[in-house]
């Protein structure tokens, strides 16, 4: 029973998925309710998670393959929220596309459960499966659209994903081979015992893991699929990809590297790797975003840059356990902030492009006249992405740069701040289009309630946590306390 209880949140989500499928199959007329069932499932799962927080009995289950700790709880909430927003944002699109609605929501929910497992897994096998559980439905969703671009995006995503996960697998295999176990804690122990002698193979495994997860995190040089897939995939799915899988990847990589590969002789190496990757990702992502004309592509590149910024947190490992967690909590904070912000941006894009049927930035001209609400919300999210108060993005930026400085990574932080200037440039140019451009037709853009709600949630989150960041920061901080013990 306790086992069931432990995986309750995921079960709730999956159950919702099953119900959705059944209703879709048995009573097609009732399709309108599907998304709301999905939402119910997500709410239940969130409540379930809350009950843990209330009970406060954190431990690991299934012989240590699944961890039930503040860390996973943090991400459970996050993923539930993300998925809910995505579901809300999808409704209009799915109704219009009219292709297997039940299946769509079911897959979204499945992905969500996969993400949850991913954030809680403490065992290589479980991680691998959870990763696939969150990826394969996403491959499908990316190809869900009927047009060529969508299926092309799906296929590209899948092929590259397969290659990347093979690399990941090989890395895991090596890790297993050296340590003789797949449990992260035992791996850590065995490395502590006689890791030094196996440094070569460990480094190789480490790099392969970085490649595998880096693909999901979308950091240079594993990022190149991002713009294509974002542009081709249905916008709600792109939103899901841009926050869901990225967040999960960061969740898992943080856990794996801090728990299993935390040994000094490794962490010195990988913190440097992360630092370099961070610098490259930020710069490349931002520079390439400058000339983009398609807003989804632009957001894709910007998400690469953002990933680079998260990585400062991963790179920010210094000696004392305290600062150690500072970097990790920076990652979590940034992930959450980014989730709110980017979702908001994507939802706004969904609403707009549904109406004007284009993702070209130049077609956003004069939005300010056509839909003040959407314009302001989108502009707001862009401001948050730039890291200007009063938005949550500001806090994330400050916090993670602070971590970087304290980890003696001044050079990286300087690169970071310069990049925030570049990003300011292209985010502003979008805002400029919307506020100043002259729109060809002044037709108002209505906002459907679901979209409005999704957007509202995201923007409120951005604003509220921008003004009272304390809860979010402390949550992130407590979540990573578990690493302090190692």
């Amino acid at each position: 029973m306790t086992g069931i209880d432990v995986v309750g949140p995921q079960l709730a989500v999956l159950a919702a998925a099953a119900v959705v499928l059944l209703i879709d199959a048995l009573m097609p007329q009732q399709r309108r309710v599907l998304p709301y069932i999905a939402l119910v499932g997500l709410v239940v799962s969130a409540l379930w998670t809350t009950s843990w927080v209330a009970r406060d009995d954190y431990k690991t289950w299934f012989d240590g393959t699944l961890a039930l700790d503040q860390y996973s709880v943090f991400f459970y909430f996050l993923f539930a929220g993300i998925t809910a927003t995505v579901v809300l944002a999808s409704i209009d699109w799915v109704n219009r596309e009219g292709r297997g609605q039940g299946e769509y929501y079911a897959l979204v929910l499945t992905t969500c459960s996969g993400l949850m497992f991913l954030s809680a897994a403490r065992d290589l096998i479980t991680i691998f499966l959870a990763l696939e559980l969150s990826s394969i439905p996403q491959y499908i969703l990316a190809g869900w659209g009927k047009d060529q671009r969508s299926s092309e995006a799906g296929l590209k995503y899948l092929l590259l994903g397969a290659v990347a996960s093979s690399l990941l697998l090989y890395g895991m295999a090596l890790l297993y081979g050296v340590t003789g176990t797949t449990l992260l804690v035992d791996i850590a122990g065995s490395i502590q015992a006689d890791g030094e002698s196996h440094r070569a193979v460990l480094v190789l495994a480490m790099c392969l893991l970085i490649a595998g997860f880096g693909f999901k995190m979308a950091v240079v040089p594993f990022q190149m699929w991002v713009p294509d897939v974002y542009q081709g995939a249905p916008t709600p799915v792109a939103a899901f990809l841009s926050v869901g899988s990225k967040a999960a990847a960061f969740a898992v990589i943080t856990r794996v590297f801090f728990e299993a590969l935390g040994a000094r002789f490794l962490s010195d190496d990988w913190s440097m790797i992360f630092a370099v990757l961070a610098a490259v990702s930020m710069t490349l992502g931002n520079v390439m975003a400058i000339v983009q004309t398609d807003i989804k592509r632009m957001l894709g590149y910007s998400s690469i840059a953002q990933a680079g910024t998260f990585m400062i947190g991963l790179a920010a490992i210094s000696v004392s356990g305290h600062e150690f967690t500072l970097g990790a909590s920076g990652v979590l904070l940034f992930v959450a902030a980014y989730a709110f912000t980017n979702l908001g941006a994507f939802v706004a894009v969904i609403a707009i492009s549904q109406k004007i049927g284009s993702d070209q930035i130049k077609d956003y001209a004069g939005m300010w006249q056509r839909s003040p609400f959407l314009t302001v919300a989108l502009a707001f999210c862009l401001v948050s992405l730039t890291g200007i108060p009063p938005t949550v993005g500001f806090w994330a930026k400050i916090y993670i740069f602070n971590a970087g400085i304290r980890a003696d990574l001044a050079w990286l932080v300087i690169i970071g701040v310069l990049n925030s200037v570049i990003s300011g440039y292209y985010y502003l140019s979008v805002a400029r289009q919307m506020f100043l451009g002259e729109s060809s037709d002044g037709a108002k853009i209505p906002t459907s309630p679901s979209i409005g709600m999704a957007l509202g949630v995201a923007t409120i989150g951005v604003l509220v946590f921008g003004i009272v960041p304390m809860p979010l920061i402390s949550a992130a901080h407590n979540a990573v306390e578990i690493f302090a013990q190692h």
Partner: protein
Amino acid sequence: MLFLESVASPPSIGEEWLWAILCAPLFAWALIVLYGRKLGVVSGYLTILGVGVACAISFAVLFNVIDADGGIATHSHEWFSAGPLVVNLGVRIDGLTAIMLVVVTTVSLLVQVYSIGYMEGDPGYGRYFAHMALFTTSMLGLVLADNLFQLFIFWELVGLSSYLLIGFWYHKPSAAAAAKKAFIVTRIGDLGLLAAILLVWTRAGTFDIAAVQDWATSGDAKGYIVTLFALGIFAGAAGKSAQFPLHVWLPDAMEGPTPVSALIHAATMVAAGVYLVARFFPVFEASSDARDVVAWIGAITALIAATIAIVQTDFKRVLAYSTISQLGYMMLALGSFGYVAAIFHLFTHAFFKALLFLGSGSVNHSTNTFDMRKMGGLRKYMPITFWTFLIGSLSLAGIFPLAGFWSKDEILLDAWRHNHALWAVGATVAFMTAFYMFRAIFLTFYGEYKGGEPVDHHDEDSHFHGDPKHPHESSWVMTGPLILLSIPAIAAGWFAYHETFGNFINGALPAVREEGSSFEFGIAISSTLIALAGIGAAYAIYYRRWVTSESLRATFAPFALLFENKYYLDRLYEDFLVKTVLQRGWNALLQANDRYVVDGIVNATGRLGRELSTRLRVVQTGQVQSYGLAIGAGVIIIVVAVYAANPL
């Protein structure tokens, strides 16, 4: 010297009275500014009232100081302070101040009265009197100030009111330009004064005039510092008193209403420079270099201005240039230890020059022009004006026994004592002065009337009444002041003849040099003869026409050209220095730098980014395999890099 034994007691007059002098016109100004629209004509009387009160008190002060044998009294209060910087507001009276007060208030009063008539019906009537009141206030403040800081403040305010009054008829482009020119040129001089203030505060740590005098004379200040300070002071003075090379603004300043020219640009403000140098006379005593500079600049100014005055055809400009040259005279005197003489000349000059200007105004009022070639024979139409003007001219020319004679004579004496070359210049100038004044008189008041300037009724800005065809004497409000002013123009010299005046003025100084007698027959007779010669020459050329001016001009063509073009100084300044070098050259360069270099770099950075971005796009070929390659290559590179970074 008699008064040195008798200890000079500080004047007993109460401080509040001194402040009252300052405040009376100030209130008039404030009232007009606040209620100017409603007041209408009353504003004029208001100003007269204010200035009158000030005038009355000033005389009281004068006598009080005389009773006190030219003692000194200062009252000082802290205004604001920031650490070591302590700035006071205070008043100081002594002989010098008292004389200046009297001069300023008296002339001002008479000019205001005159203005009632002159400005009658002008749309800016109220504004005019407001400015006048403001000017009087600031001039009095300048005179009363007991420290350099405060003095500088009123110094600038004087400049402001001068600007406003020159540009009074702002719709005339020439007036607007002249006003701007006056302010800027004087401000250039003020730079020196400002620098001097900075210097003295950092070196002496005080602004107080007495303290500064002590500091300069005590000798614990380095010689060159004192010289620099003195030169700074003189630069300021040169600006206000229109000394070469900063004299160019004064002739243009005649664009203002004539009473303004009389009050500000003849009698009082332009004398402020002389006053300033006199104020710090001990400093100049302490530095002979500075003194020589003053003397020679004065001499040059006097000469240049006189030469230009000879060829002017504009009635007022003749007077303007003569003013410049007389100011040069005063400077010359100061430079040659003629402290008393300078003040004395300032005193007399104030009266007869004001008289002359008001006379010219009266002429203009009936002929609607200042061009002497359009006048002539006015003697019979406007007798009062003629006679008073004649008195003024004689006095200026320095004919015994008029006021000008005594003061000019004393200056020449000091010059002779100090340096014969200076005396020679002075004498030449004296000759020219007599010459051009009587040239003006003969052209204006003798011969046949040439009809003046016909009235242009389309110009809504002209407020000329009457008919230039038939000139007439002006009304009593205008002639009255003329008559009143001619009295000091005649008599002002006498009571200065014996030494009381000198002692009295000297009382303002911390220490007094031995001075010889202030009169020598040799100098007196020679200068009189020179003046008479000048008059005679004018009589020969412009009345009898034994020699025609044309032929003379032809003979001395190059000189005439030089004079008529004012030595090309205006061209040099405006066309060459300002327009060409500064605007078209230097500033254009800087602006180009701003636009193309500074902004250029910024925009170039942006373009570079876009360029880079477009270049990088080609990497994104859309080929899955290339993406896969990137992944694989990434792994290998990272692994190898790590192994290389810290080998196994």
